[in-house]
């Protein structure tokens, strides 16, 4: 018991529980409560647990989450996956590797709306993979395009992870969303470059289709016009201050509802299913958050932040060094944790250290999300590659990772660019 008063031991026990397969949300709550009890006694620790769950479940700023999830699920219900892919395909089919780039764009767009890499992998694999195989694309490139494209969703707004980051660091969620736009576009462009690199070095002989007439390409946009309009409505509303980010979620959900209604795709059973999914995901995410907050109280009382701060500054009291250490931590943690758990667990510890080094916390939020994206496709354990493997059973994991090499290469370039030119992140939010 008294051993748990030391955070080093507590963290070890936490990871043992996680590897045993205890749900992250409950493992965090258990360790947080027992650890806190070791420091201040059982009765206060229990009271703290009750207060944490009771107070935070009624947080107005967090109501943004279910509403954005609801918006995304409605857009998915409207059949956006196929429409996105057709539109991207119509515009890119005449370019070399166009089909793979179209897949990246469609996966980025789809994962951004639905917010789940699992759903992106399973949905897009069904739509994009058969087509790429038909045209002779190698499995390595096809699967890598899906896996890499799917990582972009947590950066392109609206992003659940950025909401959690904003809540934990008291940063403006609207600014965080706006800050994600340019790095998200940069990600898409660089992934297109990665496709070209793969083709060049793999000596793939890929067919190029005829260019569609402009008229037909514009017609192909019809299916995504609603979703694009919705995105512009939500981001524009935040940018021009028509509503707060929290309100934008409700307005966006309302817009998405209208979209499904206008497309005639609203049937009661399907809508009920969409809302049920939203509620389940909401519960799952909030319980991770509550668990992380309970654990953060233990971290707070155990003096962990101070110890780590001392440790980091003793290694090198140099901003770049601090960022590199943090980057490494994320790449390692990314082997076992998915993004939301990783962010809720680490951000409370890291953000005071980073702020003390003079980094902008909006910038750091975007940086952390990009590094998390990279960890999703980094071997030996890349979450998105694993997820895709579980969906596409006839492709070897090694094949997927081989295809991801060039994508990882451009991701490193993106991380370096963001470090060297913070303006890529801060330009849009600072114009607000």
């Amino acid at each position, binding site marked *: 018991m008294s051993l748990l008063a030391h955070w080093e031991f507590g963290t070890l026990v936490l990871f043992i529980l996680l590897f045993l397969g205890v749900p992250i949300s409950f493992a965090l709550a258990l360790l947080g409560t027992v650890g806190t009890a070791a420091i*201040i*006694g059982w*009765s*206060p*620790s229990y*009271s*703290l647990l009750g*207060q*944490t769950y009771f*107070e*935070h479940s009624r*947080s*107005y*700023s967090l109501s943004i989450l279910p509403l954005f999830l609801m918006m995304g699920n409605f857009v998915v219900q409207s059949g956006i996956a196929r429409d996105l892919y057709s539109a991207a395909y119509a515009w890119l089919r005449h370019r070399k590797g166009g089909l793979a780039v179209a897949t990246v764009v469609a996966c980025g767009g789809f994962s951004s709306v639905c917010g789940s890499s699992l759903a992106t992998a399973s949905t897009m694999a069904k739509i994009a993979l058969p087509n790429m195989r038909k045209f002779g694309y190698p499995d390595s490139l096809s699967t890598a395009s899906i896996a890499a494209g799917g990582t972009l969703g947590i950066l392109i707004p609206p992003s659940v992870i950025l909401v959690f980051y904003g809540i934990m660091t*008291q940063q*403006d969620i*609207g600014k965080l969303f706006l800050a994600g736009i340019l790095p998200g576009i940069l990600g898409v462009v660089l992934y297109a470059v990665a496709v070209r690199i793969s083709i060049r070095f793999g000596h793939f002989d890929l067919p190029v289709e005829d260019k569609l007439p402009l008229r037909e390409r514009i017609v192909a946009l019809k299916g995504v016009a609603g979703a694009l309009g919705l995105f512009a409505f939500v981001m524009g509303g*935040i940018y*021009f*201050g*028509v*509503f*707060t980010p929290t*309100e934008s979620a409700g307005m966006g959900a309302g817009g998405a509802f209208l979209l499904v209604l206008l497309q005639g795709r609203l049937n009661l059973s399907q809508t009920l299913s969409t809302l049920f999914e939203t509620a389940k995901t909401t519960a799952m995410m909030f319980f991770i958050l509550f668990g992380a907050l309970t654990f*953060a*109280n233990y971290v*707070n*009382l155990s003096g962990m*932040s*101070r110890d780590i701060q001392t440790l980091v500054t003793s290694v090198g009291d140099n901003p770049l060094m601090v960022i590199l250490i943090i980057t490494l931590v994320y790449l390692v943690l990314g082997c076992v944790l998915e993004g939301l758990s990783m962010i809720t667990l680490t951000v*409370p510890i890291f953000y*005071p250290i980073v702020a003390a080094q003079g980094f902008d916390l909006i910038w750091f939020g975007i940086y952390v999300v990009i590094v998390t994206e990279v960890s999703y496709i980094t071997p030996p354990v890349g979450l998105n590659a694993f997820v895709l493997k579980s969906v596409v059973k006839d492709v070897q994991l090694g094949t997927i990772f081989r295809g991801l090499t060039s994508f990882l290469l451009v991701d490193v370039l993106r991380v370096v660019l963001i470090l060297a030119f913070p303006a890529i992140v801060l330009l849009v939010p600072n114009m*607000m």
Partner: protein
Amino acid sequence: ETVLTMNSWLPPTHPQVSELFVPWMADIERVTEGRVKINMLPAPLGPPPAAFDLAKNGVADIAYSVHGYTPGRFKTPMIAEMPFMSDSSVATSVAFWRVHEALLKDAGEYEGVKVLTLFTHGPGEIFSTKPIETPEDISGQKIRIGSALAHSIATDLGAVPVEGPSSKAYELLSQGVADGIFFPFESVNFFNLNDILDYGYTVPGGLYNTAMFVVMNEAKWNSISPEDQALIEPLLGEAFARRAGEMWDKVDAEGRASMEGKIALKAATPEEIEVLRDRLAPIVASQIAKVSETGIDGQAAYDMLFDEIAKIEAEE
């Protein structure tokens, strides 16, 4: 040696932390010759509404917060949130403490904790992006408010109340979700609103105020030796309230000075004050009635508060 943990949810740069609590903590350590120390936690253990229970349940030893963050729980402190009290936070804070000692504490709202002090901020005024020359101009403006009483006052003046935490003030105003805000002078400056806001309308004694507490777990207090308790007592209660008031008056003056050339302040004319008094009288009466629900004579507490304020203002 006793180390007391203190929960803090304001940023460390906020004057209530840096200029009030931190020097006060150092004084406690000094008078007890290091036998009693206070350790302020690097991050809060819960959101601001949780603070009172954190101390009551012994999660943290000392906690501070705003009474109004847990609506329904504290009725007596509403006495100190009334309009037209005083332009001096020393006067309102010390008077609030004296009324608490004389009358309010019998309501038994602070069971399980030792009340270290009670205080208020400086006079709360209206600031806006749109001109306010007379009380009529407030009508129709979207005003961010932070408490139930301020909500009633804003509504009564015809404003459209916008709800939201003070930490979101910049966002609400810069984006035009709210036109204006109810705030003390200091907070306008602290939340960097000088460049966004253009107009201020001031009422002598303020249009509203906010009551705040600092409490300590009772068992923890009793565990301190009587000798050390005796050494600490002079730093609590009225002395602590005065100290809080002095801090607020100082930063309010700084806040007011920083508005120079950025915010046009208009003071209410005597006629306007009379109009406002009449309009807000029912709200004042209903708040007094709410205080009386606790078994305390609300009117007596209200009268004593204003008597004490007058006395303290005369001394200054």
